[in-house]
Every structure is written in structure tokens, then in C-alpha cells.
């Protein structure tokens, strides 16, 4: 389902800055974290960003490497090779169970 970007990434003069991370559902509970600002120095893929998180919070590894984990970059469902830039909003969550 394509959804327009809700947050305009900065046209970064410097490519350094913060990425706003969000966690939902069971993942949020397991990480004991609902949001986190991550400082990055250059654009990186979602999977590279996950590795950064795991190196910083090693006990998160099993949950962040969960095969079914989903990611949304700037509120659009995204695959793990998409590039995250400073100013972006990146959310991780398990498969949805609404309705």
C-alpha cells in the first residue's frame, strides 16, 4: 500500500543528523522502547541501520532480526535496502493485527 511521505526529509546540506526511530506492538514491549533518536553521519540502508542498533543494544538482536519484522520509512512500508537519511522517520513493527 503506497502512502505519500508524511515527513519531508531535509534536503540535507550536511548529511549528518538524527533519524527518529519508532517501535510498535510486541516489538516495543520487548525492546522496552517506543521511540529513539539515532545520530547518523551519512545515509545508510535500513538493514545497515539495524546493524548499528544491534551493535549499540546487543540484547535487541533477536527482536530486530525477527524474520517477519516490518519497516516503514517516513510512514511508507519499505524494504530493508531502502536508504535512510538524516531527518527521516523510521518505524519497526511486527505484522499488523487490527480490525
Amino acid at each position, binding site marked *: *500500500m*503506497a*502512502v*505519500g511521505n*508524511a515527513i519531508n526529509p531535509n534536503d540535507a546540506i550536511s548529511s549528518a543528523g538524527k533519524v527518529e526511530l*519508532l517501535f*510498535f*506492538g*510486541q516489538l516495543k*514491549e520487548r525492546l522496552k522502547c517506543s521511540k529513539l533518536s539515532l545520530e547518523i553521519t551519512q545515509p545508510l540502508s535500513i538493514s545497515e541501520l539495524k546493524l548499528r542498533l544491534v551493535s549499540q543494544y546487543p540484547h535487541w538482536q533477536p527482536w530486530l532480526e525477527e524474520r*517477519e519484522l516490518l519497516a*516503514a520509512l517516513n*510512514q511508507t512500508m519499505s524494504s530493508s535496502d531502502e536508504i535512510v537519511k538524516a531527518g527521516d522517520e523510521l*518505524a519497526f*513493527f*511486527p*505484522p*499488523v*493485527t*487490527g*480490525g
Partner: protein
Amino acid sequence: MSIHIQVQTDDFNVGNEHNTLCSNNKSDGAVVTFTGLVREFSSGDNVIALELEHYPGMTEQLLKSIAEQAQTRWQLARICIIHRVGYLALGEQIVFVGVTSRHRQAAFEGAQFIMDYLKNHATFWKKEHFKDSSNWVEFKQSDKQALGKWT
């Protein structure tokens, strides 16, 4: 054509939503609604409540996008989607989907399509509370399979 999307903690009133779908609507002879309620989902266990969270902003956009897709496939003049979040006790209403159309089949199919896509794509997460425990609801394969008929 109109689309009304609402994610809220408050309850909704099906009668009122139905009236809104029908009022000042000269052309649509068919209204279909779906309402989902908190029931004893898991066989054997006694669910006493659900807890629902969502991704504010993204959820509303996804629901709007699902409704727009439905309007490109069927002649659906009005669509209303209401989804509650927060703590919901047994018997409470969770979700309402209402559509109007000139045609009965379009109304049925449009409402069913919206629910099938909502179940698979809308960013809600549901936790079941039991007497002494709670657990997050697992994604249902049957919901994924339900999408098959729309492709």
C-alpha cells in the same frame, strides 16, 4: 464521493454512522456495514479485554488509501472507516466500515475489500488480556489468504 476516516479511543454509534451515510444521498440504494466487536477469540481461553495501539498518522493515511483503492474498483459514493484504539472490554465495538453504492454487489464487495485490506495493511496491533495474563495477537494467515480474491 466522500471518505471519512477516524481512529479514536471513544466508542462509535452504528445507527448514527448509518444515518450519516444515508442522509442527503439521492443516488445510493445500497448500504453495507461491517462492525467488529471484542469477542472470545481464542478457543478455550477467556478474553476479558483487548488493547489496541496504532501508528498515528500512518494508520489514517493507510485507511484513506485503502478507501481510495476501493473507490477505483467499485462505484462507492461514501465510505466511512472508524477504528478504535486503547483498552476495549469484551462486547465493545472495535471497527466500523460502512459504504454506500448504487449497486448491492458493489457495496458488499467494497466493504469486504476494505476489511480484508485493513486486516492486512493498517498499522494496528492488538493485545488480548486474559484473567491472569496477556499476549499479543499473532497475524492470521487466513487474513492474508482473504486478499487472494481481490487480485
